[in-house]
């Protein structure tokens, strides 16, 4: 019997040693990242390709944007991923300068379940009214007048929203805050909102999509990628220039054809680009500007900088096949400039 107990204790020891080594930085030649789930499939593909080409292993965990920021600030990861630019407070909490580079674009679409699933055209005002619970029927004149070629049914609108805090809700509410003063006043912008009574909440994109597919008359918002992969009907939306834009990877990329500031902190919702889809946004990778912290080696800093550079340039060719929207030239150039500003002991890492 004691042999058993000894064996057990031995196993526990081995196990805990394993855990401890997971806590610190992993072995040289392996980078760790964590954060946004939205770009995770793309990152998996990119990191897999990068490993084959450069023999650098990258481990990325999709734990959500908030988690990505927290993990970077706690210095447990080499880089984080986030769908929203870090707030003033978060940047202050970070202690040292944190840089952002955009890696690709995402978009949120308004999706619905109507007989025959027609392609609808919607204006920002109508979307705000629907998601404020003010327009209650599909054949409401405000919707019908925009879609004269479609016979809309006398069906109640059931609004579905995300029940979990999410970047999708953030970008959607940011857009509506910009276009509707009533929305700004009542709901505002956030990862979770104080929705009107009687809306259905569902968890994650699959939850919202699943409910819409099951419920005639339901309307909700999901990521473009998710709608494309599941053949869902979604609306063209009138942008700032007055054009109705159908969401596609291309029209989402077009949304970023605006002046990109040096830190790439730009909100692309309600974009002024004339053929850009208005509910679009960047997703970013975040990392410290000064890479010599927490005992990191120069080699580690170099391999991180090289990886980021690859993602902003050559890696972009893997974006479109996965139905994400690639960075336009201006954004890619801004990202390269930011990566070149990374330092180790004050000296630039890449030349």
């Amino acid at each position: 019997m004691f042999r058993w107990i000894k064996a057990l204790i031995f196993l526990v020891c081995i196990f805990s040693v394993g855990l401890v080594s997971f806590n610190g930085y992993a072995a040289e030649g392996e980078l760790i990242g964590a954060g946004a789930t939205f770009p995770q499939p793309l990152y998996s593909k990119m990191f897999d390709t990068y490993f084959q080409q450069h023999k650098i292993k990258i481990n990325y965990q999709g734990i959500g944007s908030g988690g990505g920021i927290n993990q970077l600030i706690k210095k447990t990861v080499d880089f984080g991923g986030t769908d929203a630019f870090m707030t003033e407070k978060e940047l202050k909490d970070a202690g040292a300068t944190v840089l952002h580079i955009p890696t690709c674009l995402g978009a949120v679409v308004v999706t619905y379940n109507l007989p025959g699933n027609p392609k609808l055209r919607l204006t920002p005002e109508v979307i705000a009214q629907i998601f404020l619970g003010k327009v209650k029927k599909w054949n409401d004149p405000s919707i019908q007048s925009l879609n004269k070629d479609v016979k809309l049914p006398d069906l109640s609108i059931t609004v579905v929203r995300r029940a979990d805090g999410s970047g999708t809700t953030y970008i959607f509410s940011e857009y509506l805050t910009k276009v509707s003063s009533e929305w700004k006043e009542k709901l505002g912008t956030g990862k979770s909102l104080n929705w009107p009574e009687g809306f259905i909440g569902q968890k994650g994109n699959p939850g919202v999509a699943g409910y819409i597919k099951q419920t005639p008359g339901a309307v909700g918002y999901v990521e473009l990628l998710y709608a494309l992969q599941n053949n869902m009907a979604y609306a063209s939306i009138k942008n700032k220039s007055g054009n109705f834009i159908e969401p596609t990877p291309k029209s989402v990329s077009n949304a970023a054809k605006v002046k990109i500031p040096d830190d790439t902190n730009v909100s692309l919702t309600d974009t002024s680009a004339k053929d850009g889809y208005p509910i679009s946004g960047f997703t970013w990778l975040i990392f410290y500007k000064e890479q010599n912290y927490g005992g990191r080696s120069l080699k580690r800093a170099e391999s991180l900088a090289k990886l980021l550079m690859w993602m902003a340039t050559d890696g972009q060719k893997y974006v479109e096949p996965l139905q994400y929207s690639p960075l336009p030239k201006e954004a890619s150039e801004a990202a390269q400039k930011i990566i070149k500003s990374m330092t180790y002991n004050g000296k630039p890492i890449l030349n």
Partner: protein
Amino acid sequence: MTKADKSEKRFTKILLISGLSIIVLLLAIFFTLLIASMPSIKTFGLGFFMSKDWDPSLEKFGALPFLYGTLITSFIALIISIPFSIAISIFLGEYFRDGVVSNFLRSSTEVLAGIPSVIYGLWGLFLLMPITRYIQTAFGTTPYGVGIFTASLILAIMIIPFSASIGREVISLIPGDLKEAAYSLGATRFEVIKKIIIPYARSGIIAGILLAFGRAIGETMAVTMLIGNSNFLPKSIFGPGNTMASVIANEFAESTGITASSLIYIGLVLFFVTTFVNIIGTYIIKKISLEASKEVT
């Protein structure tokens, strides 16, 4: 001191440590919850349970809709499940104790108990939701398809195996001579069930039901998928609502500051509610088993 004595002592020590570690674990969970929810407790105090506002943008929080949602769904689920679980336990414990049919039915209930709750949720989305929507259309209420009623229904199905398997276990343990004595006095099978089996097995059956209630209170995934996640007090049994477990599961990942603290406060409340149910449960079981043993012997 012989070798046997030594090992005896060592064995006792190991048992003691294992036993104590459970208590330490329980206290650790309690204090973690308490400390992490402190900011919220300080801000909202006990009014937290009375307030029905849950507004993340204004950072005003109240747990009443969730407390209410948890208790009402679990309670309705319990009411729906009781007739079925008692019937199954009598059927398996008394009518068909052995044989192919019994084995098949018994393993079926065991398999039901082992199915992950997310699968119940999915199944509910595909089957229960259309059914509920049909009923709602018939009643003339808004046909959401999801809500308190749908969530209670799935909970009832999920907890039946728990109460049924404990009930069956207890019923099959009833001494044969008790039943034989009743039969020899000319009792019919129904009379034996009513006068001997149910009174004798009552504490076990109730224990099973309480265990099931505990499970219903803490159930998360399937409920999240079917309750509609609306942070308001439900207006009717068909309306969307939310439960404590479900709001934590939904919102915790992306929450920070006072929002996170308020969610943990809800977790603390959930901890207390389950402990409370357990304590009442053990008390009832103790009392009833005393009475039952007096009645039968």
